[in-house]
């Protein structure tokens, strides 16, 4: 069976489309999005082990339905992945424990985290939060309110006593700064 090597630069859509023929493609997809998905859950549950379980279930669900993913112009694969992550979080909240259906379906072993993994996940939280803390005060408040607290722009504007446009600008600048600093690291 001839298998073409998976390129690390391949677009997400191609990685998902070939995941079943070329398993390593899904590994590339995982590596590319691991930090963001872990960070998403860590910010919401605050526990590295629960965040890891939620991440595992999210990627397992993505793998199960990867062949059904259809690229759309306005909805990249990362948005599709975060849709799965949100559903997974909501389902887990409802049940009071981390959903494991996709992992069971795939026959995946329960995740046993090493101390090193837990430390690396915790560091992810610290890195992001430390960078947010380093932002100028007005940008910091806006980014925290919008990205971490997930509040609406009008609501934030009311709280910060400025216009919605100003809040949007502060969030945009703050995120731009964060992105640049993360790339430096």
């Amino acid at each position, binding site marked *: 069976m001839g298998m073409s090597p998976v390129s690390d630069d391949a677009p997400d859509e191609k990685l998902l489309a070939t*995941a079943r023929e070329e398993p390593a493609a899904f590994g590339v997809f995982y590596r590319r999005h691991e930090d963001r998905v872990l960070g998403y859950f860590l910010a919401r549950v605050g526990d590295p082990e629960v965040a890891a379980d939620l991440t595992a279930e999210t990627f397992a669900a993505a793998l199960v339905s990867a062949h059904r993913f259809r690229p759309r112009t306005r909805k990249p694969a990362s948005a599709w992945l975060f849709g799965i992550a949100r559903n997974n979080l909501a389902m887990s909240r409802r049940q009071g424990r981390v959903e*494991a259906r996709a992992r069971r379906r795939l026959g995946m072993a329960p995740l046993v985290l090493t101390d090193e993994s837990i430390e690396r996940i915790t560091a992810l939280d610290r890195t992001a939060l430390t960078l947010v803390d380093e932002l100028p005060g007005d940008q910091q*408040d806006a980014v925290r309110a919008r990205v971490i607290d997930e509040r609406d722009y009008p609501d934030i504007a009311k709280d910060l006593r400025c216009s919605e446009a100003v809040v949007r600008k502060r969030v945009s600048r703050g995120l731009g700064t964060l992105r640049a600093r993360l790339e430096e690291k």
Partner: protein
Amino acid sequence: VTRIPQLEQELVAAAARLQSPRRLLGPAARAALAAAALVAVAVLTIVGTADNDGDRRARPSGASSLPPNPDLVDHEAGVRFALDGRVLTVSVLPSAPSKTRTRLNGARIRATCGKAFTEGPGPGPGADPRQTRTRLWPAGSTLVRFRFRDDISRIARWCRLEDPVVGHVAFVKFRATDSKLSPEQKIERTGSEWARLFAASATGDCRYMTQPLCERISCERISGPIENCTPPSAAYRKSFRAATVQDIVIKGHRAAARFSNGEAVEFFLPEIEIRGGWLISKVGGNAGRRFFK
């Protein structure tokens, strides 16, 4: 290197298993695979059912996942234990003596929780069930989680922290210690712990709060976001960072506490005791007004 290399390996292996057997195998092999799959499904169903019981509980904002055992403190060592499902969270309090910190920092520390008080054969579900896990305590860290193999939280009566070489660090007995606290002490403890969490948590940690209050604070129900809901401002949260309980008034199953930042909160005592009993039911606005006239 990814943060969870074992997960990447599991996913790639799972993707490999998803490869179509039709493409890889002949008809005879496919028939054998089908029979094996039936057995595997049966095994997975059993394993899956068993695994459900031992799964960690998710603790996202809005979800009530309070453990049966409350947080307990070894005051002499200045160490707090909280057992939630399979996870034992051990934190060093600011009041901890330097001896505790010296013993923990950079050392391999063993945590054990058990039911009976006699020494047994060790981990396992025998006559003396107990769970043990050893981890490196990172230098300077004030909180470390120990994940046990099985959930012992519903039957555990004690937990111990020790350096396998040097010896004892901290020890707590469940329930007995907690029952000695007066209602005022329980409220004070719950209030102080809640204030710390409330000030630190941007996404809303719902421990110590009733479900309706938790939903109002996170502006989110399980069914979705709550319309026209404004969560507490960051400044309001921060005001609780170093706040301590100054005054408590108890009226039957309801109570109120005033904090050093001038804010008051109301408490409610549910019929089923969880985490010290009292839960915070009202925050902000006119909370506590009818108690502190």
